[in-house]
């Protein structure tokens, strides 16, 4: 990871929620959702790591033959 990637990751993974809100991060997230692909358009295809076995899983492989429900979230 280069220095720029580190900065990118650090701004995404905020350490303090109140500072994130004070900086308008929550509003920017709402705007990002509004600008995300609308229903009817193609979804973005990405590869992620499966937690249980470390396998690299590509989204298009999961939606190839049946609908895919994707819930996003975290522990906190």
């Amino acid at each position, binding site marked *: 990871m280069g220095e720029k990637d580190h900065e990118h990751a650090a701004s995404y993974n905020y350490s303090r929620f109140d500072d994130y809100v004070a900086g308008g991060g929550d509003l920017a997230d709402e705007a990002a959702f509004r600008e995300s692909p609308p229903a009817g358009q193609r979804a973005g295809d990405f590869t992620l790591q499966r937690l249980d076995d470390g396998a690299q899983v590509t989204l298009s492989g999961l939606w190839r033959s049946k609908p*895919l429900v994707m819930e996003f979230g975290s522990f906190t």
Partner: protein
Amino acid sequence: MFVYTREAHPGENVPWHDSFGGKLACARLLRDEAGIRRDILVDDIAGTVHRGYGLMPNMTWVIDRGGRVVYKADWTSAANVEAFLVRFLAGRGRRPAGTAAVMYETQQIEFRHADRNRFTEHLLRNGPRAAAEFEKAQELWARRSAT
């Protein structure tokens, strides 16, 4: 399946991610404490997938076979998703004469169970500062809505 993103309310016990290894550890905590049995796919440290789908902390998307978005909500309601899937799959399966696929948007207000004590307990599980920071964020939201 479940896409594991960044921590929304990090604290002393469940920290923000500064490495992919740390992110995996928090994802395991989610799996084991919340008892998630679906596959959990872990986004990268920069949130590439999360950014691609709109950055909200607890959203749900449904992608039809072939890769077309057919449902997106910036907050997860299992009942809404289930009702949508029942209608969508029934409609797509039959496709009676005279029907067409159309897209429309919905915004709605719901009355959800709001147990503030339980939510605060959860924040404290993340660490005391997570609860304190949420209190401060609430003050910021109140100031925002007053202006």
